[in-house]
């Protein structure tokens, strides 16, 4: 992800299990504008596959995913 892509906000889903990260990401994205980037932090290992499915079904774009010692960071761009 380039330096031009600065997250508009960070959503902390650490310690939350399915379905909460997906529900919270969906709520957060609704409150943002097209083109803005959401950073989401998660510790549920299931959220990696869940976020890919969410991306596929909603059309929003995951620009990057980082994993560091069990902490997942997703960078999502609102596309519509």
């Amino acid at each position, binding site marked *: 992800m380039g330096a031009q892509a600065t997250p508009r906000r960070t959503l902390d889903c650490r*310690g*939350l*299990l*399915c*379905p*909460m990260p*997906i*529900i919270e*990401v*969906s*709520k957060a994205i609704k409150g943002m504008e097209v083109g803005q980037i959401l950073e989401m932090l998660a510790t549920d290992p299931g959220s990696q596959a869940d976020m890919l*499915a*969410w991306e596929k*079904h*909603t*059309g929003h774009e995951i620009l990057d995913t980082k994993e560091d010692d069990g902490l997942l960071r997703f960078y999502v761009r609102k*596309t*519509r």
Partner: protein
Amino acid sequence: MAEEKKRRRLALVASQGSLDMAYPPLILASTAVSMGWEVGIFFTFYGLDIINKRKLPTLKVSAVGNPAMPPPFPSVPLQGPTIIGTLPGATALATSFMKGWMSKANMPTIQELIEVTLDGDGRLFACTTTMGVMGVEEEDLIEGVSCLGAAAFLDFASEADVSLFV
């Protein structure tokens, strides 16, 4: 373009009214609306308790005849033969333990998952046959429920991409 595609549809039947059996359909429903899907849940037989105003706050985990017993934690004092579950207070204990470990894991309540589902335009269908059999009136049900029969639910489900019976 995602918005030009026909929206996916999930049709669920919730046939069980215990706390542990209320979670799976509502987790699926709240997730599906969060992915932009259309959702409808048909609450039938004991599943109707989940959308019954009076019963919803007091859904219980049965300690008897429940394949989830004993609880999967050695610290819960309901271990041992199934007959332990028949002791007075066992259901109350199992219920409070489940509520305890769900809240410790930051899991939402059933009410919260229902709210997410309704906020995402998910539909809650009350089975009118169950209402008739169990003497449940429309005013006994939570806000946002539509009452219908099997044919109307099947019509909704006939357009579904995913249909599950819980």
